[in-house]
């Protein structure tokens, strides 16, 4: 079986390499890809949309329709994990671990036992609990707001520097996941809850699709941001720039919410109870 697969793979690779002999050279400025379509983007990004970052202009304006579906892909990945793993009716877990804080004794309560009510002395811990470490906890708590600020900066500056909605959204999601990893899954869920992620992810993609629909109602084609010129009170070119910013914000929201939701579901096995 391995031999057949190896032969097939080598054959396939050989055929592909044979096919590559006609490719344009690497870095050739006269290749068809560099001369047919892209000069239009490079030369007309600023006159058409006044956005210096050409990649953002192409991503959110010229090919904005693709990006909307890309956001829908992220959204459907989040919903798919929700559908597959999430258990909405959590039966009582098999056993819970509690730690008596004054003495440091860990007790395990099996299913059906009485759970300790005095939460001052008893602290619920996970199966993979580690003792409180000042350095890790304080360091992460200090870093999280700066990471979130940087994420917002990346989203807002997608026009002028590499960045945009996807990158900023992932960084923001990473900040929340850092908090969840360093402290506790349950405290992270208290801050950014499951309902919040569901609403935010839908809201994000709705902002994108809704902007396009708004352009449709205002007379242009779908996702033609220059139709928003009257609504925003600017000329059509600046309207394109603002439209790009609006959809990037939508994308950032959706990506952040889905990243956090995916982490919650995958790390806690669908129960949103105990995590990594």
């Amino acid at each position: 079986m391995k031999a057949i697969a190896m032969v097939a793979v080598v054959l396939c690779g050989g055929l592909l390499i044979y096919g590559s002999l006609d490719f344009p050279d690497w870095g050739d400025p006269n290749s068809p890809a560099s001369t047919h379509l892209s000069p239009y983007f490079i030369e007309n990004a600023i006159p058409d949309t006044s956005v210096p970052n050409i990649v953002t202009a192409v991503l959110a304006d010229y090919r904005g329709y693709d990006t909307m579906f890309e956001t829908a892909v992220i959204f459907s990945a989040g919903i798919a994990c929700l559908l597959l793993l999430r258990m909405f009716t959590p039966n009582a877990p098999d056993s819970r671990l509690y730690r008596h804080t004054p003495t440091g004794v860990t007790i395990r309560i099996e299913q059906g036992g009485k759970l300790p009510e005095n939460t001052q002395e008893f602290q619920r811990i996970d199966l993979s609990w580690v003792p409180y470490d000042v350095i890790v906890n304080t360091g992460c708590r200090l870093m999280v707001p700066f990471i979130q600020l940087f994420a917002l900066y990346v989203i807002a500056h997608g026009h002028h520097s590499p960045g945009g909605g996807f990158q900023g959204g992932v960084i923001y999601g990473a900040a929340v996941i850092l908090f969840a990893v360093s402290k506790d899954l349950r405290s992270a869920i208290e801050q950014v809850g499951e309902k919040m992620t569901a609403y935010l992810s839908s809201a994000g993609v709705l902002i994108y699709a809704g902007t396009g629909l708004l352009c449709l109602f205002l007379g242009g084609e779908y996702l033609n941001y220059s139709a928003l010129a009257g609504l925003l009170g600017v000329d059509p070119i600046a309207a394109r720039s603002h439209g790009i910013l609006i959809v990037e914000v939508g994308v950032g929201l959706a990506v952040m919410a889905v990243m956090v939701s995916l982490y919650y579901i995958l790390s806690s096995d669908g129960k949103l109870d105990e995590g990594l």
Partner: protein
Amino acid sequence: MSQHFPAIIIVIPLIAAFLVTIAGWINRRYCMPIAAFALTTALYGAVRLVLQVMAGGAVTYQMAGWPAPTGIVYTIDALNGIVLVVVSAVALLNLVGTSQIVARNYADRLAPFYSLYVLFVTGLLGIVITGDAFNLFVLLEITSLTGYALIGMGRTHAPLASLNYIFMGTIGASFYLLGVGYLYLSTGSLNMADIAAILPSLYESKVVLAAFVICMTGLFMKMALFPLHGWLPNAYALAPSVVSGLIAPLTTKVMIYVMVRIALTVFTPAYTFGTLGISQAIVWLAVIAIVMGSFMALSQKSLKKMLTYIVIAEVGYMVGGFWLANRTAMTGAVLHIINDAAMTLCVFLAACSIRFKLASDRFENLRGIFRKQPVTMAALVVGALSIIGVPPTCGFFSKWYLLSGGIAAGHYAFVAALLFSSLVNAVLFFRIFEIGHFEPFSRHGHGPAAERINEAPVTMLVSLLAAAAVLILLGLYSGEIVTNIIDYAIPAQIS
């Protein structure tokens, strides 16, 4: 507003998917009506578009106002339009039919289920309507992702079957992406019409040949053509029955549409059938697919698994018919896309109804089912007659075109495979009918026990009857469909 139909067809279901998610947290009973409204809008838009195309020729729509090739452009012609109608109609019928079953079985996961359902249909509609090669990839991935999740919800080892589907499906989609990359490398454009304009000067290049082969391989993986069909039987049989009525009729047919689109529009027929010279090999693959699918179907012991092997054989019909490269066979292949979607919907809806009431579709459990579920079995009979190819159901007409095309091309192996497959289908279904009519004796030995009618919910019966009626209507109107739509769908160069 009517000039915006191409965008509305896709956007309304897309927004509905997100609204369903939000509605799920507010009140679960709103989910299904929102989804039904979205699919009805899509169906209405598709019908209006087909009428527009039939009256005035192809319709184009520029997204975001940018002309091709700078932006993404949607083009609807006769081939697109009719597949759009088929996709939205099948999705709507399945949604309505399974609504009460879903409300009973998946009550706590209604919102994600309907959200993924509508996203799946949005992806399929987008694949059919788009005129941009990369946009097709993104929509293909939406369809695939939602399909993987919906299939993974099924019973026994459905997650493993879905995981195998992920591996094969992702490799197939990646090959398609690689093929588009080769085309971009050699032409510099992503718009299908633009590529078709640039390609003729590049036909001797190895890159274009490699692009074609890689694209087709990727598509063959996704449409489950032999020998790349390994993922289909388990994935479709183990999927939840409410979902197989959606995925089984549509996914493979839309992939066959993509193959037709790439072979006829992006690469011209002269290149595909003339310069390349692989048509014969692919027709032989199709013949093997038909024969193997029919054989494997004979050895199955449960209804759904048997139906999945019939799906594999049907894919062979369409692929073989297309690559025979004469007009009659291609008409048969395109007509069969429409007919097969309807037939597969009908039989899978019937299987869903049977499984819902009996909790098992193994043949020995189907005894006496004609008495217990008469409406379901009536629809199954019509669907079976269509798959076998009995007039006046639609299956007869598309098979007739395929047979004539095979004879005209002189490919008698294809003709023989078609006839063999019809015979095997007859055996398969009459076996079920025989078991279904067999009524068990009552315990006291006083004669056959009277089974009470224990039918599926009302919405399922309505969908079943609608699907069966569609089969007969499609058959009666085959001639009109061919002359008014399919003749324009196939380019004039093909004789």
